[in-house]
């Protein structure tokens, strides 16, 4: 969105003169800076888990997977579900920019339901894997990485729920969609991370 890229000093030029507000950069909006720093820290967190998984797989030499095969088809379907939720999230954002109330409401509800479906399937997969984090180090790394992602889905669902409440209260319109946009950026980040986790753990692993 073009408006999001406009520096705060330019965007608010019509009513604010003089030096920037306290604790407020004139070059980047607070919401953008916040989500930027947050996602960079999240990337480092995921990076640590990936590093642990690769290290354990190479060094420990455990049998992998410990029992049977990983349910690749289920995980791939789950990836498709999460990818679809990114599409509906984008639809929600476009609808918000066009002040399309139906699009916003249908989009955010569909996104939430797809996210909840992903989480349900993931938990169901855990229950039927046939091994636990205690089985061996590789299994611990598997549960650690996919569990970390699952925790992010839970946080994403909370953000989506809060966005849905704001949408249904009529608090989101083309002039007030920064909150929805930040939730969308976070949700897309969660989706990207699952694609990376799925490819490395289920396909390359």
């Amino acid at each position: 969105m073009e408006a999001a890229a406009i520096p705060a000093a330019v965007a608010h030029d019509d009513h604010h003169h003089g030096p920037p507000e306290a604790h407020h950069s004139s070059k980047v909006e607070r919401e953008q800076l916040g989500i930027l720093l947050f996602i960079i820290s999240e990337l480092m967190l995921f990076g640590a888990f990936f590093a642990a998984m690769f290290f354990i797989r190479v060094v420990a030499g455990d049998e992998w997977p410990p029992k049977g095969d990983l349910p690749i088809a289920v995980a791939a379907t789950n990836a498709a579900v999460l990818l679809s939720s990114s599409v509906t999230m984008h639809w929600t954002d476009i609808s918000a920019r066009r002040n399309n109330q139906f699009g916003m409401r249908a989009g955010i509800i569909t996104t939430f339901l797809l996210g909840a479906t992903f989480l349900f399937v993931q938990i169901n997969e855990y229950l039927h894997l046939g091994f636990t984090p205690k089985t061996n180090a590789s299994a611990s790394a598997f549960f650690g990485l996919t569990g970390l992602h699952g925790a992010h889905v839970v946080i994403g669902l909370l953000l989506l729920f809060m966005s849905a409440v704001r949408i249904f209260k009529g608090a989101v319109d083309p002039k007030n969609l920064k909150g929805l946009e930040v939730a969308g950026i976070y949700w897309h980040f969660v989706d990207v991370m699952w694609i990376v986790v799925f490819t490395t753990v289920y396909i390359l692993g």
Partner: protein
Amino acid sequence: MTDGPTGEPGNQEPPAKQPVWARLIAPLRSEDAAFGAVLRVAAAALLVIAVVVLVRLVT
């Protein structure tokens, strides 16, 4: 009043190239850009999966 050069179009300077760090964080600047990143990562993953499947079929 414009800030840029007002000479002939052929003499205008090309737009400044974004620094690497700015291009790296570009997907985080807007929901549109983030969605574009999702599509690009998904396309790259599909490519990797296709290669892996082909290699497993051959070997």
